[in-house]
């Protein structure tokens, strides 16, 4: 019920202002008409009833007085004629009866003979005063007036008046009054319609202008129709729109500046990352081509030295150097791979990632499942994307190892149209992203921002989803071209 009422109120609130005002006016007019007609009917009934009752009594008295001579002279033919004339003249009369002192009918003007019930229905109490009785009958309400003829010497005259006759009269009057009131109401509605239209026009214009401005046409201005509240509102609205326009222009300028700055920044970051990658590549190559070659030469030298040496102590020392040399070579190799996996350049992104995963599993005892969907194992794509996504995956796994306490990681690479969609999901302890992304001592967590930065550089999407005890999921989407 309350819900229904609320819905009704919401409906009322949602209709246009014009309909609301017209609705209020129409509602008041309808209530006014309704109350006026009912009140008029009641007042009319009260006034007419008094007059009708007086008239009925006057008719009865008059007829009684006129009957006296006819009764006294026994001229019942003329008396009946008088009764008939009176009944014909007054349509509201249903019957006229003259009863003698024994309450027997002397003469009557009735469509049929009167019933005993009717004869007993009314009688006079005083010899000089009428007595009224109202009863219902087969033809409706009857007001029966009993009047003593010549103070009761000649019996009682009884006249039955139809009460519904009064209602018929009232109905006629009410119909006429009703038509007048309805005509007046209609006229009022038309006047109200015109006035409401005049009042509503500036508001409607204002609404149109506001809508146009909302849709982007900031050059529109409201027309000021009058100097009233609505006019002032229109003026204020126009000033507000002017201010808005100026602010908008400033904001546009600022946005352009920002955009330029951002582009510059991105270019710089891009260059930085490229330089960083190139540098890593160069160092890796240097380490591999020069240091590793030198160390291999040293190892070869040591080997030949070992074959020449007879001294077991020396042999032992050489062996130790060889082992140290092998460890260094291994470390250099790992460093090279870490700096710039040659697999990435030679066999592509997926081979590099798998190699990294293999080493990661080996190093940290965390199970990593990697799935390709829509990609072949050695499929290549945009080298910039390859290295950046690789770095992001690297960072993600590094973070998992450092913070997540996870035992399993699932990585999926899916080809969706010309996009790579990568999802990295662990079963670790998760974290509160909002808290994690807050600056700590003025520094932002570089890991996540670094990943974000790399992906945004590629024009891709980077999303991270995590909650304490619910693991972490990283979503990446970048163009393959």
């Amino acid at each position, binding site marked *: 019920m309350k819900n229904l009422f609320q819905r009704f109120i919401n409906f009322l609130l949602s209709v246009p202002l014009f309909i609301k005002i017209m609705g209020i006016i129409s509602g008041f007019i309808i209530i006014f008409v309704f109350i006026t007609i009912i009140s008029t009917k*009641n007042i009319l009934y009260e006034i007419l009833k008094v007059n009708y009752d007086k008239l009925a009594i006057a008719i009865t008295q008059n007829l009684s007085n006129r009957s006296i001579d006819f009764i006294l002279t026994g001229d019942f033919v003329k008396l009946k004629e008088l009764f008939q004339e009176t009944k014909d003249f007054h349509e509201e009369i249903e019957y006229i009866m003259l009863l003698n002192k024994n309450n027997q009918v002397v003469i009557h003007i009735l469509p049929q003979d009167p019933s005993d019930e009717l004869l007993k229905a009314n009688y006079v109490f005083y010899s000089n005063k009428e007595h009224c009785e109202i009863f219902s009958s087969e033809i409706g309400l009857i007001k029966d007036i009993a009047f003593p003829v010549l103070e009761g010497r000649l019996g009682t005259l009884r006249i039955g008046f139809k009460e519904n006759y009064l209602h018929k009269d009232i109905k006629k009057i009410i119909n006429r009054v009703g038509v007048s009131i309805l005509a007046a109401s209609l006229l009022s509605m038309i006047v109200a319609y015109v006035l409401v239209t005049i009042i509503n026009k500036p508001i409607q214009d204002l609404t149109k202008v506001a809508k146009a401005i909302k849709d982007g046409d900031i050059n529109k201005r409201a027309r000021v129709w009058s100097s009233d509240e609505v006019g002032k509102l229109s003026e204020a609205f126009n000033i507000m729109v002017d201010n808005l326009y100026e602010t908008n222009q400033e904001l546009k300028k600022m946005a352009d500046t920002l955009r330029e700055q951002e582009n510059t920044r991105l270019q710089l970051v891009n260059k930085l990352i490229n330089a960083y990658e190139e540098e890593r590549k160069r160092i890796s190559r240097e380490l591999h081509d020069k240091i590793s070659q030198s160390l291999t030469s040293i190892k070869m030298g040591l080997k030949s030295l070992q074959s020449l040496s007879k001294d077991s102590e020396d042999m032992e020392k050489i062996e130790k150097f060889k082992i140290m040399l092998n460890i260094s070579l291994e470390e250099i190799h790992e460093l090279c791979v870490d700096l710039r996996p040659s697999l990435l350049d030679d066999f592509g992104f997926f081979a590099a990632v798998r190699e990294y995963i293999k080493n990661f599993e080996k190093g940290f005892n965390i199970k990593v499942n990697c799935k390709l969907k829509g990609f072949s194992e050695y499929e290549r794509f945009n080298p910039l994307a390859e290295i950046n996504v690789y770095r992001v995956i690297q960072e993600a796994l590094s973070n998992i190892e450092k913070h997540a306490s996870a035992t399993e990681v699932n990585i999926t690479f899916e080809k969706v149209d010309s996009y790579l969609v990568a999802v990295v999901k662990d079963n670790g302890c998760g974290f509160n992203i909002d808290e994690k992304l807050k600056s700590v001592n003025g520094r932002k967590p570089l890991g996540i921002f670094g990943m974000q930065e790399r992906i945004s550089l590629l024009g891709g999407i980077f999303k991270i989803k995590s909650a304490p005890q619910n693991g972490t999921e990283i979503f990446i989407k970048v163009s393959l071209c």
Partner: protein
Amino acid sequence: MKFDKVFIIILVIMVLLNCTKKEEYKRIKLYSSSKQSEHTEEEGSKGVTIAIAPVISPKRSLILYEDLVKYLEKKSNIPIKIIQKNTYEEINNILKIGYADLGFVCTSSFILCERDFKAEIFVIPQVKGALTYNSYIIVNVNSTFKKFEDLKGKSFAFCDPLSLSGFFYPISKLKLMNKNYLSFFYSTIFTNSHDNSIRAVADGIVDGAAVDSIVYNYLVDSKDTYVKKTKVIEISPSFGIPPIINRSGLNRKIKKELQNIFINMHSDPEGYEILRKIYIDKFVLPRYDIYTSAKELMRNLE
């Protein structure tokens, strides 16, 4: 919001109050299939019936004579009924055919009844010490008519074609002038009773009328509003006062009994009071000599 609800509740109550004003009434069946006979009383029923000629209007007659009738009933123990008719002739006929036993009639009616069916004088009322009365020619108090002849070409009201004072006297006067009332007067009406004639003159319906002096004087004494608006311009010679007559076949014993009651009424305080009210001193035994002048007048008219 609270105010809104209160307003709506008041509105609904007002509307309901306006709509639910309906009273319950007793239900009655108006008409019956069984025939109801109309109880108009038949003339000539048991007891003594008195026919009253319309010397004055029937309503006045009833009011005037009802105490007398009650007194007679009480004294004689005989049921008495009154019959009134519109004209003197109807009363004469009722007496003639025996529907009525006694008749309060005009002098001329008595003369005609006596001649016609030997009606007898029952008693004679004495009014203001006299057994005679006159016919008054009356006109409106504001009129300039001085004598009967001035009414030539005017409108005139007669009482009844059988009234001595209200018809035969002015007719006899016209006869002496060799005129008839149809040519002498511009128009004439019959008012059926003397009080109606007085009213017709007072209201200016007619210019003049001939009325019974007893009725006129009675109305003057009663301070009647109409009689004040009239004046008498001519008084006729005296005629025998209208008697109470009886039909010749009336039971002698009843006649005697009732006659005694009438004659002794003035001696009985109750009877005296009734007589005083009806403007009669007493009732006296029949005397035929007082009607000679009236009989003479009527004979001349024939």
